[in-house]
């Protein structure tokens, strides 16, 4: 993988769509069609689009893994040409548009987001939601592309401000961490309170119902457990719903990474890391995994069939 090509590609996609994979903002909000959320309000639900992007991330990952095994010289040239000249049909935006993403696939991730929103509504939380919801920008920061990240989050901060929100509810660990900590280094007057949806549900005394398996092994997402300190919350919610939880050897603050974060640069290594972690989870004796992060979800999901396990987002286990 050539970093220069990656950088150019991300910049190009960002310029066209404000999204690293060229996913459009109206797509990010599609799950909410017909739910009639107000666009302005004291409390804002901000998804960061990561769940919605899973089918695209997945598609892209498969593509990259194919490239990785190509002759490196050829691959380097292809990436350069792609980024510089949009030729060879490798432009990700047109490429992703041309590959049909199955309706079933999209629907699964939309349903997770909808299920979070519905739980919040049932818990009596009123919130606004953006019609065209921007991505969080966290990938740019991970890769060290601070200029692009700054530009991205300044626009995001402005859009959040325009909704009038004083409190933002987030639904994935990466976006939560970004809004809680990173954005403050780049945007001066970002003064909204940021809370993870599980905290909101617990604060409201919400008791979820079982909707999936009655027993699961829990995988703490690194960013949720270590960087945001959200560890007991999913356990409490699962136990309130009566779901039995098994703990792997490496758990809570010592949880093991799913490998997802290096998937774009080292796809094969990433999938080996996923498999190793999944073996640890499987050793608990439960073939049903629950995760609370879209990156863990997609990275595990890709290996699930081969390992004979099923991977659920927590909001597929309870509702």
């Amino acid at each position, binding site marked *: 993988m050539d970093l220069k090509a990656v950088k150019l590609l991300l910049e190009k996609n960002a310029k066209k769509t404000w999204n690293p994979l060229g996913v459009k903002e109206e797509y990010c909000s599609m799950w909410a069609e017909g739910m009639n959320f107000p666009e302005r309000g004291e409390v804002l639900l901000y998804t960061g689009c990561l769940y919605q992007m899973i089918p695209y991330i997945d598609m892209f990952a498969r593509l990259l893994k194919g490239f990785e095994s190509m002759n490196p010289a050829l691959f380097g040239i292809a990436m350069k040409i792609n980024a510089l000249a949009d030729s060879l049909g490798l432009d990700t935006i047109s490429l992703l548009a041309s590959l049909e993403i199955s309706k079933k696939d999209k629907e699964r991730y939309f349903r997770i987001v909808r299920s979070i929103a519905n739980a919040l509504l049932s818990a009596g939380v009123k919130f606004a939601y953006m019609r065209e919801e921007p991505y969080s920008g966290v990938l740019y*920061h991970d890769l*060290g592309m601070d200029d692009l990240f700054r530009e991205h989050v300044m626009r995001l901060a402005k859009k959040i401000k325009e909704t009038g929100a004083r409190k933002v509810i987030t639904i994935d660990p990466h976006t939560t961490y970004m809004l809680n900590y990173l954005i403050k280094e780049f945007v001066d007057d970002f003064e909204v309170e940021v809370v993870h949806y599980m905290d909101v549900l617990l604060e409201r005394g919400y008791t979820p119902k079982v909707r999936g398996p009655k027993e699961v092994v829990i995988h703490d997402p690194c960013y949720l457990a270590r960087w945001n300190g959200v560890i007991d919350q999913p356990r409490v919610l699962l136990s309130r719903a009566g779901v039995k939880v098994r703990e792997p*050897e490496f758990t809570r603050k010592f949880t093991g990474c799913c490998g997802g974060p290096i998937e774009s640069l080292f796809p094969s*290594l990433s999938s080996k890391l996923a498999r190793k972690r999944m073996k640890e989870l499987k050793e608990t004796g439960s073939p049903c995994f629950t995760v609370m992060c879209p990156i863990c979800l997609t990275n595990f999901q890709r290996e699930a069939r081969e390992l004979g396990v099923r991977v659920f987002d927590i909001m597929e286990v309870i509702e």
Partner: protein
Amino acid sequence: MTDLTGVSQLLNKVSDDPVLRTALDRAISSYWKKRKQVMERYPYVKELADEVRRIKEWSIDHMDKLLDKAIEAVEAKGGKAYVAETAEEARKIVGELVGTGKVVTKAKSMTTEELKLREFLIERGNEVYETDLGEFLVQFLGPKPMHFISPSIHLTREKVAEFLKDFMGVEVDKDDVEGMVALVRKFLRDKYFSADVGISGANAFAADRGAVFLIENESNIRLSISLPPKHIAVVGMEKIVPTMSDAWKVVEVISRYGGYKVTSYINTVMGPARRGDGDIGPEEYHVIFLDNGRREASKDPILKQTLYCLRCGACQYLCPVFGIVGGYWAGLESAYSGGIGVMWEYITGDKETSTQHAFACLLCGRCIEACPVRINQPEVLREIRRRLMERI
């Protein structure tokens, strides 16, 4: 420079090696078990580790002042102190002190690996022996020390038995680890007595008394630095702490986080043997303080925390990437391994290669939980990425 293909191919290839995977799996699960026992048995070490963090913060902020004090203390005791700005300079000083045609015994030391000192001395016509069992294996089997405290972490006992059988020409039982240790020990015993120079690093250095602290489990260090008439200690400048009591705290934390319930020996060396006092030990004590990028890093607000590193190896054991590629992460040319290895290499060695390797970090943060002094490796590695991405 921006093409990661080489790094990706290297890491991919080694992560498929079943021997490496078996060796790492065994070492990691044994470490994790020991770590839990240590934390249960010595609950105070967490607090002690926090204190060590404060000692290191202060020491790195006052590196120059501490260095002056350390030099003064070494010389007051009749030792000789040197400052080496670069690896080249350090090699030159050691080269002159050792000469050629000599026998040298070495204690395990990452800092001398950073200098590629063994290779350098051998090239100059000396006979050099690593006396730590793991490091001894690395000397003959390569490719490099793969972990801070367990340099042969990549080798299975089956592999080691095979090697010793050839090397020593005797039958070796692969399940008799003690027996293998005894074999190497016997081989080295003669070397200690014929050695002209003993070379060590330092786990900590107390500026007030000019004392080197060395932790060990095999008693090889004691022999390799006290029997030869000359002791040379190569000390990275980040190792200097103000007092003896600070240094004791540092070594206890290193050995606990390294997974030791009991560390067999801790040596402190404060100067050459004084004749007539009945002291035994070398007549010459030379301490080389090594900069090689450390002073510059100590002034860098983000890189600086790398210098708090005690080289206990805890983060390497618990890093998911290290768990499948071992010390190949940071590259074969680097003495250092893993995410923290990438940071050390960036400071002391090859910035280009280490920058490429920085992209293999997951930013998952388990290293921070593992680390006694809570070094934020993701923050540093991301910063190294940023410095490249900004330029290209």
